[in-house]
């Protein structure tokens, strides 16, 4: 039997990025995937005869250019930045063009100027944080020269713009997005957009303390070389997973699907391989877990191999999703009131105001879904016609809030929530209901089951202040290395977090190749 230098658990895009980097670094790598195909949450599926969905993500806004270049990701297209249109139901849309609204249609000149000022400030501040994305977070008690240079760089970056900007950064860092938006903006739709973007996928409302961090996180991402930009590659989102697979295979990575891992082998604090669910043992000195940290340490590693304190902290990682994914099969392209035809291929956000987002969050605190939800929509088949039969169209929506632990249970809740979501769509695109061929709503519980994602949380753990950087997923495992020698974390649950960036996997692999001490 072939022996491997490293086993990567999970063929999501992070697992594949890690595997490819390791293989390019000269390691012989085996990727084990439990599902019957690679791609993780970007794995496409046919949700209705003739209609395909590309998976959870429906837009690219943070795929790291260095990662893509380094692993040789051949992903055509995606040079055109897509607009975002906010619809409030009045028929008067606001459309942001370029990278996160370099120019705006639909608001008066003074509001445009106010947004430009806020955008500039947020992008500058996110730029400070961005320095920390491409390297392991500093390890408290073992700060390295590289850490110091990153910290110094961040400090200098702040000072470059004068003391006032530095002070403002520290003031705003842990603020809520609502207060920041109120300071700058007057238009409810713009404020609603910021509130939505800051909280999407996070269990916070816009008025919750620290909610601005979500927006910063978004603005640490780039697409087509532009901060805050968003694109869809040629061939649509469904082309992303195959591109990662091709890069991995080209680098010599072996990928096995339908190969669920039963256990990670570890003895006296040292990992030595895995045991497959069918009992077959595969040994390797390095095991990279590119799946949820809680699955890794609470189910795959014998808890006896971890310390009580560590298990306690892993159990405390908050990872309950709040977003439902809707895929609609339509027999024609829908017509949203106020949406200009040029903006149809972009992102559509249905949000009236910040208050609506906040009010939508309230029931989620108590285990109920929003009776008046907010959502973002794309029409994937416009970019890739093969996703729908000729003349048909697919609609993809991320809808919040839909808490994982629904008090009433999702079995009863799902039809009720779907009805509300479809009614919301009907209000914005009258007549859409009659064109629906099939509707597939995935609640966080469904997402958990479909993608082996505990809590149905695509970030593999809340992206909040207490679960970031040196605390992602938890202190003792925040530097990709874990308390178990030879076992590394490489999923969205590791630094910097979720979204299609490739960074957690790529960073982890680089850390392993650098011989970074665990």
């Amino acid at each position, binding site marked *: 039997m072939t022996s491997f230098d490293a086993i990567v658990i999970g063929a999501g895009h992070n697992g594949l990025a890690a595997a490819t980097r390791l293989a390019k670094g000269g390691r012989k790598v085996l990727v084990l995937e439990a599902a019957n195909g690679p791609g993780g949450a970007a794995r496409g599926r046919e949700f209705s005869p003739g209609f395909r969905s590309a998976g959870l993500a429906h837009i690219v806004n943070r795929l790291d250019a260095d990662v893509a270049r380094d692993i040789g990701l051949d992903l055509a297209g995606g040079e055109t930045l897509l607009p975002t249109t906010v619809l409030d139901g009045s028929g008067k849309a606001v459309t942001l063009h370029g990278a996160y609204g370099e120019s705006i249609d639909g608001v008066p000149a003074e509001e445009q100027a106010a947004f430009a000022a806020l955008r500039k400030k947020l992008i500058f501040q996110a730029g400070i944080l961005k320095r920390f994305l491409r390297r392991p977070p500093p390890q408290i008690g073992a700060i390295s020269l590289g850490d110091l240079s990153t910290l110094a760089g961040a400090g200098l970056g702040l000072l470059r713009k004068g003391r006032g900007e530095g002070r403002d950064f520290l003031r705003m860092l842990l603020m809520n997005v609502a207060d920041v938006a109120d300071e700058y903006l007057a238009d409810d739709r713009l404020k609603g957009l910021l509130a939505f973007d800051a909280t999407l996928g996070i269990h916070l409302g816009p008025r919750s303390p620290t909610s601005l961090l979500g927006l910063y996180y978004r603005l640490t991402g780039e697409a087509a070389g532009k901060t805050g930009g968003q694109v869809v590659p040629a061939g649509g989102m469904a082309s992303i997973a195959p591109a990662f697979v091709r890069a991995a295979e080209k680098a010599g990575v072996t990928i096995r699907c339908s190969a669920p891992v039963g256990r990670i082998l*570890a*003895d*006296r*604090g040292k990992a030595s391989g895995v045991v497959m669910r069918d009992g077959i043992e595969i040994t390797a000195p390095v095991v990279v877990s590119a799946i949820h940290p809680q699955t890794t340490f*609470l189910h795959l590693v*014998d*808890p*006896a*191999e*971890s*310390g*009580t*304190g*560590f*298990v*306690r902290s892993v*159990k405390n990682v908050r990872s309950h999703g709040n977003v439902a994914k809707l895929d609609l099969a339509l027999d024609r392209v829908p017509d949203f009131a106020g949406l200009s035809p040029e903006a149809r291929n972009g992102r559509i956000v249905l949000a009236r105001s910040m208050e609506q987002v906040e009010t939508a969050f309230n029931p989620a605190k108590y285990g109920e879904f929003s009776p008046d939800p907010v959502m973002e929509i794309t029409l994937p088949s416009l970019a890739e016609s093969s996703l729908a039969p000729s003349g048909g169209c697919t609609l993809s929506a991320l809808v919040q809030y839909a808490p994982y632990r629904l008090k009433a249970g999702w079995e009863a809740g799902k039809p009720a929530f779907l009805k509300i979501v479809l009614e919301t769509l009907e209000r914005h695109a009258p007549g859409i209901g009659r064109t629906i061929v099939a509707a597939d709503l995935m609640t966080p519980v469904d997402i958990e089951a479909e993608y082996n994602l505990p809590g149905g949380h695509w970030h593999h753990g809340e992206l909040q202040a207490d679960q970031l950087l040196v605390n992602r997923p938890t202190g*003792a495992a925040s530097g990709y290395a874990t*308390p178990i020698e030879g076992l590394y974390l490489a999923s969205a649950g590791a630094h910097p977090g979720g979204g299609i960036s490739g960074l957690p996997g790529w960073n982890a692999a680089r850390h392993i190749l650098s011989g970074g001490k665990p």
Partner: protein
Amino acid sequence: MNALTTSAAGLRRAARDHIRTPRLETPFHERLAALSEVNDWYSWAGYKAPHSLFDGELEYFAIRSTAALFDISPMVKYRITGPDAERYLNRLTLRDVRKLAVGRVQYTAWCDDHGHVLDDGTLFRLGEADFRLCCQERHLPWLLDSAFGFSVDIREETEEIAGLALQGPTSYAVLRDAGFAGVEALKPFAVATFPHEGGEVTISRTGFTGDLGYELFVPRAKALSLWDRLWSAGELHAIRAIGYGALNQARIEAGFIVANTDFVTAEGALRADRERMPDEIGLDWLVDPDKPNFNGRRAILDARRNQTLRYILVGLEIEGNIPAEHAIVYHRKKHEAGIVTAGIWSPTAKRNIAIASLERPYGSKFTEDLWVEIYAMRELQYQKLMKRAKIVPRPIVKLARRTATPPGLK
């Protein structure tokens, strides 16, 4: 509705009622109170416990010359059972529990993830999957959190199980005359059950005195009858009830350490540098690197490899006869080297002895030219004494009768 709130308020009041008894009484309190001539009580884990009952010195000599009966009911006791109990305890504690046979007792300790000692104690293997863990501090949250992934049941039984230590040269004779047939077969660190009043008493050949001695555990309801059984059998063997003052002297002679006296437990420490690794409090011999993973393993082995251990625990013999409790230890009379955590004039060794915590390299590399500075109070005036100290192996008092099997009768 009204009835409901009334009863709810009543329940709340009842739940608060413990505040009316700021000091709990042990199952033996009735006997102890009757014997107490000096009324010298202190709080042991919230229980009223005697510091002394009639005369500290005579109580000490009961331990070393006849038989001493000491109430250990306040000791915290956990019962750990279930198919994974052995594996669970092996991960929790420092020693290899697989080597602990049924009917045997292990002195052990347990650490947090950073290798800092949470407590030390004794682990009794009462059955293949049935253990009792005895210790000084409370650890239920830690024990329960440690149980994730193990099939075990963990129960605190401090309240329901009464405990007695019977220590001293005639302790075996007392048990024999009390009718505990077969007790002579118990080797040190052995435990067995014996019939008592239609139930069972667990007797182990263990103790905290470095002398021949036993510890007896019995359900609360049978506590007083056990006491009376020992007391009447012990009359001719000069049995005496004792308080902690006497026991403390014996344990210092035996070189035993006490949590939160000789070291600060990791969960209780407020200051980061007060936590201690096993190697820093003389418990390095408990650590078994060859057994499966256990809490603190990596940190302890890293500290050994990187030589980052900061402290060391030593036994001291100090010139003169003034106890050096809490005195500062110096190297060459000028460099501060540590602190005496416990010190007495040893009536058996006839020497001034102590247990001290030193900061390495004092005690590890520099072992000569050590001094302690004793402040002796002389009629409201301190007399400062600089006394020479010598590191000596523990136990400082070693008695052949502690381990002789079958035990002697006096």
